């Protein structure tokens, strides 16, 4: 075996030294990109010049997508350039290296200095030197210029009173939607400014939906009481169907009620990713991901049908590989509750994938047949998102067991206790112990005792005046 080991070592050394021999041999033509060699002008042949955009805000129009928020004398503006824009700003495909620069501007009109808490904004953030280093070539004379440029463009941490900082914060790359929570810390103060940016570059499945024409305005039914809502949701069909509306496919095992922005923001905060529609490029990437097992965070989802149309929005949360992810599909219902949109959803956990001819990219996911497990995961995830104001359960699916399961159109079995979760989203953040409960039914064993206890607890909270009404303390604080 020692020969094997020696051979392996030799190979590794060779593999390492080969690019070294190739790189680092071209001549170098100066330390600074001079005026004439500005962006767009090709560098002289055989020369190594690092010529990024000197003035990103002027050269690249990403600031048209910027957003601004103000709180207690602190004003934060943020914007996220796309991968293509980054290539123009920095001269490299940073997305390919897992780096996503976020433009941040902070003005401090308060009396004390404040600090950005980088680790809270992104525990895996890149300091400018590291972000630059990922683009260094071996013994490349421009390395120094690259590092200098990244440092010049990066933001500072501390904002003095009356001062202003601006620059890039090098976050971890996220596909589709970039969520950034700008944490500002100062003496006895701590602010969160949450931004969500749709980053141009990939198409997303919900962008193909013609939202205004799904339903006519008079098709919507509005419910004002919880009891009406409960009945409407309980009587909703159990499962997705074929395109023509027949058959029973995957279970429709949850509902979400609320403003679309609040709903999507809650999912994004918990690390869910948006989904690309099925097309040649996404199909090819999914096919490759199947064979390499690599993560493909926005991989396309097959269409399943409710209301005779495919899902309006697909969301997924990948684990280490494409084979394992949680995914859900949402359809807008022609139902409103107190004026809010109501969606029906189907959530399941992919435990692995296998080859099949039933999808255009020749692979499909094996789902965890214990469907309630995925439902529980979703409940826990959303309860921690801070977006859920109230939740509970309704019935509506025929209960089934491992011995007598349902079968979906992919010929995969699933079983459930028959309950579906209802989430009501609010626009303010709600902490875990402020979440209210729909006093309907409860899933699981001992459900009778649990719902009795929950009703008692809700009654107690109502008596204490804690539910839905601001307490006296809150009022004084507002003053």
């Amino acid at each position, binding site marked *: 075996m020692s020969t094997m080991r020696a051979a392996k070592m030799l190979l590794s050394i060779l593999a390492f030294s080969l690019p070294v021999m190739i790189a680092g041999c071209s001549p170098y033509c100066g330390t600074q990109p001079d005026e004439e060699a500005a962006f767009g002008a090709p560098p002289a042949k055989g020369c190594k010049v690092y010529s990024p955009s000197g003035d990103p805000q002027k050269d690249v129009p990403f600031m048209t997508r910027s957003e601004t928020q103000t709180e207690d004398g602190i004003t934060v503006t943020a914007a996220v350039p796309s991968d293509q824009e980054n290539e123009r700003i920095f001269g490299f495909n940073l997305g390919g290296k897992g780096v996503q620069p976020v433009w941040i501007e902070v003005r401090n009109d308060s009396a004390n200095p404040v600090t950005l*808490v*980088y*680790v809270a904004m992104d525990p895996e953030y890149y300091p400018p030197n590291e972000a630059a280093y990922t683009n260094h070539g071996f013994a490349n004379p421009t390395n120094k210029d690259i590092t200098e440029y990244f440092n010049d463009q990066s933001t500072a941490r501390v904002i003095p009173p009356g001062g202003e900082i601006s620059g890039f914060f090098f976050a971890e790359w996220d596909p589709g939607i970039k969520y950034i929570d700008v944490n500002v810390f100062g003496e006895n*103060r701590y602010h969160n400014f949450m931004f969500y940016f749709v980053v141009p570059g990939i198409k997303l499945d919900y962008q193909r939906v013609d939202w205004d024409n799904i339903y006519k305005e008079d098709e919507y039914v509005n419910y004002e009481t919880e009891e009406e809502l409960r009945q409407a949701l309980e009587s909703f069909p159990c499962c997705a169907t074929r395109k023509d509306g027949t058959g029973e496919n995957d279970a429709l095992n949850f509902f979400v009620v609320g403003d679309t922005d609040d709903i999507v923001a809650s999912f994004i905060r918990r690390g869910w990713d948006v989904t690309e529609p099925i097309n040649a490029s996404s199909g090819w990437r999914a096919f490759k991901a199947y064979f390499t097992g690599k993560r493909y965070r926005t991989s396309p989802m097959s269409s399943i049908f409710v209301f005779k149309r495919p899902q309006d929005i697909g969301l997924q949360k990948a684990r*280490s590989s494409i084979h394992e992810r949680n995914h859900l599909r949402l359809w807008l219902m022609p139902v409103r509750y107190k004026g809010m949109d109501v969606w029906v959803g189907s959530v399941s*956990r992919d435990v692995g994938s296998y080859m099949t001819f039933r999808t255009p990219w020749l692979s499909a996911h094996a789902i965890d*047949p214990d469907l309630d*497990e995925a439902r529980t995961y979703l409940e826990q995830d959303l309860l921690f998102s801070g977006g859920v104001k109230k939740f509970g359960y309704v019935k509506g699916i025929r209960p089934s067991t491992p011995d007598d399961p349902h079968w979906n159109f992919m010929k995969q079995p699933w079983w459930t206790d028959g309950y579906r979760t209802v989430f009501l989203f609010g626009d303010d953040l709600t902490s875990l112990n402020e979440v209210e409960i729909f006093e309907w039914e409860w899933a699981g064993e001992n459900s009778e005792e649990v719902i009795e206890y929950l009703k008692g607890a809700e009654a107690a909270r109502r008596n204490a005046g804690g539910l839905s009404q601001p307490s006296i303390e809150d009022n004084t604080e507002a003053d």
Partner: protein
Amino acid sequence: MLNTFRFAFICITLLMFSGCAATYDTQPLEKSTFLERAQTKSQAGLTVTAVVLSRDESEEIFGVDLAANGVQPVWIDIENNADVPYMFMPIALDPDYFSPNEVSWMNHFRFGGSANKKMDAVFDENAIELEFILPGHRRKGFVYTNLDPGVKFVNVTLYEVENTENFFFYFEVPGVTPDNEHVDFSSLYTDEEIVRVETEEELREALSTLPCCTTKEDGTGQGDPINIIFVGKPSDITSATIKRRWDIAEVERKKFSMDLNKVFSTARYRTFPMSSLYTYGRRQDFSLQKSRDKSGSTYRQRSTLRAWLTPIRYKGMTVWAGAVSRDIGSDLRVRKYWFVAQEIDPDIDETRDYIVEDMVLSGNVYELGFVKGIPPATEDDPHTNLSGLPWWSDGKRAVLFFTDEPVQLDEMVILPWEEAEY
């Protein structure tokens, strides 16, 4: 060569037949000894017991090598003697926890119909049920979490409508030999050598006597700066670092080629051995590292922290001197490790601030201050460490005070010592 061929032949043969002869055997839970390492905590009428399985234990209990797929079962036993039902929330323990069927699917045999069914049942029956636990009831079983090598932080969150209870556990997982196993902390200093201080000013005075930088083994030279100081009980400091997912370093092995394999492999190797730096004439007393959490990243991108116990005791708490730096990639140079050398972020204050933020976010830091002690240097006129890498600094060290009580970020006290970023 003959051996190699024979080995390959046996492998292929085994592969061909493995499917047909798939048998799946597990050891009954009662026979395993993992419960001997259990930790139990009680509060608010709830009693929680937890154990993190080692690689060998999980293979014994589940009959398959779970660690190979990055799965680490955690045993949880919850007894509810409160007067309301509580629900266990594994998502607070691991936001990417695995479902029983998922773990089973990863380990399925290629053609093992009945064995696979049995496996599904074993993982399912041993999993803890995630439902409300009524008063007077008890639920126990495994949660299948993502693998943490060496040390693991386990947070058991129990929810009821009005209240949430958190139980924090810190586990050393058998199977990884930490590089400071040989350090005998009680014999590092004699009683006369210990400097006992009681007031903040005395402490500040004492800290100014700390060496500026690490040295060579013989005490000469000037290496990386000592730029962070931890004050607190050792258990509070380690809890905070484990909570923020810092990993220990394994003892450096002499089998060089094996390590070289690991260097060139793309797998994330979280407990990669760390090289020795010297202060007080000895190697670091403990080594911690945090590698980038992304597939394909390796030890090449990690932050490292080496710390030495100082002779200073502040109000009975230990004081540790630490050197932190961030490895941003590897470069090929002829150095100690042949041609592979770490490139560090030369802006060493950036790394210091990163660790200050990270520790503060653990919620266990109640005071923070800055002291002088490193000769300042600038980008144009940097210091170099013993590997010849440049670094520069404003010359300040962060001093962090740890407690086991949870501290909100805006409750943290900032000492009026040196002017600094916080």
